[in-house]
């Protein structure tokens, strides 16, 4: 099992629902719509044996594009074949189905992406802030984020 065969398998099973495949990129990825993701995640884990979610990176792609979640999944064997899955959502409806039941490590990662970027993961059992304080406002890694002047009376001295 290598990356090419994973991509081939996914293409065969999902066909048009995979919106983009780039195997030539520095970081080869496949792209799908949020609605396809739970099914694709199950497929990747159960059929392709990609049993480890290595990383979930949330990225703010800027105005007109929206937010993106990049899932790096891989197979935990000596070859470590893996693939990145990218899912893009608009700002106003930044909802991606949660995959915490597929890979349990997604639990904290999704909380982090919610905390820092404001991507909501539908179906997550406890989607609360993880790194920032519970009463923090805004999502700091958004490109349009403005640092607050004050937090609980503590003045923000950063110029």
């Amino acid at each position: 099992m290598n990356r090419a065969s994973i991509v081939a398998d996914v293409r065969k099973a999902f066909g048009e629902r995979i919106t983009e495949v780039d195997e030539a990129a520095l970081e080869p990825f496949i792209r799908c719509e949020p609605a396809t993701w739970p099914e694709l995640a199950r497929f990747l884990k159960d059929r392709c044996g990609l049993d480890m979610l290595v990383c979930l990176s949330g990225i703010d792609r800027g105005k007109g594009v929206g937010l993106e979640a990049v899932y790096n999944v891989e197979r935990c064997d000596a070859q470590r074949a893996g693939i990145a899955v990218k899912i893009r959502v608009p700002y106003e409806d930044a909802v991606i189905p949660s995959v915490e039941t597929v890979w349990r490590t997604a639990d904290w990662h999704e909380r982090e992406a919610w905390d820092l970027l404001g991507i909501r993961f539908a179906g997550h059992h406890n989607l609360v802030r993880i790194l920032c304080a519970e009463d923090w406002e805004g999502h700091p890694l958004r490109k349009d984020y403005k640092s607050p002047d004050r937090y609980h009376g503590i003045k923000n001295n950063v110029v």
Partner: protein
Amino acid sequence: MLSDSTRTNAVTSGSADLRTEEMLLNMGPQHPATHGVLRVLVRTDGEVVLDCEPHVGYLHRCFEKHCESVTTLQSVLYTDRLDYLTAMGNNWGFCMAVEKLYGPELVIPERAQYIRVICQELNRIASHLLAIGTYGMDVGAITPFLYCFREREKILTIFEHICGQRLNYNYIRPGGVAYDVDDAMLALIKDFCGYFLPKVDEYDDLLSGNDIFVQRTANVGVLSAKLAIDYGCTGPVLRGSGVPRDLRKDQPYGIYDRFKFEVPVGRGERGSVGDCYDRYMVRVREMRESTSIVQQALKGIPAGEIRSSKIKAKVRPPKGEAFTRIENSRGDLGFYVVSEGKEVLYRVKCRAPSFHNIAVLPEISRGSMIADLIAIIGSLDIVLGEVDR
């Protein structure tokens, strides 16, 4: 001599007329055994842990936000503060991601590659020394901690000579390393390797072979391989569960394919596979393997350049996205970097091994005692600096 039944079941029933109550215990963020500012909310029945929930974020320093506002070269400095016990690894991990953006044309000079390996492995030894020492302290043995620090001090002195810093090195830079290493330094490192190996036997006498230590750690916090993979655990935590995954072997980065070394895995010597003792033993053995790698690297280190001329003083990575991982002392340290071709990176995401390793805590500590919970947290060997970033 001591009890064989090391795992206590959560007994809540008791006799009918004895009223028992659950207690909510707040361990941390200031507690001697949480290795930083971890806060664990523990629901206990007497001394038995019914459930626990780690709360992180007390050391959140906006690493990723910082990287979006300072230049790439300045970001290297911030990576030091992630896993502050293996800052060399953090530097390397970040630089590797940046170097990947440059594509295959960028060749890191041989000498720099060797220096990177030597520094990374020495740093791994230093980090494991601290892990083992504090672990001994967690289970009540204070002396091994100071023995470990005695050796760690020597490594830190070496680093101080190499790059002027003892903890936050900022030494490995995109395209090579910051300064060259002279022969006297290499001789010092060679001496250290010879000095260090017999010392590991000392730790084995004090801890690994101590019956009380074995009783405290064997069969405690058993983490199955499946659960470890499901939670994304890596490094000694995953290897302690008997999974021989090591990026230095699986996807040799740098020049790791030139060295001969073994990947220690947990074998359940004293208890079952994946218990605290296995995780501890993996670290002890990795120190021996790292010493061997350093010795091999010292033999092979060539003369020459230490920085690629392709990367200029202003590091401006080409447009693109890259995700790379290295085997840091606590597991796979990954960086997902997005560059717009400017001096400042568009987005940096750090995949911190401790972040995954600590998430598994509730799963393996249910039904154990409070003392076991401490032993389990210690065996996971987290650094809050990289959990909270």
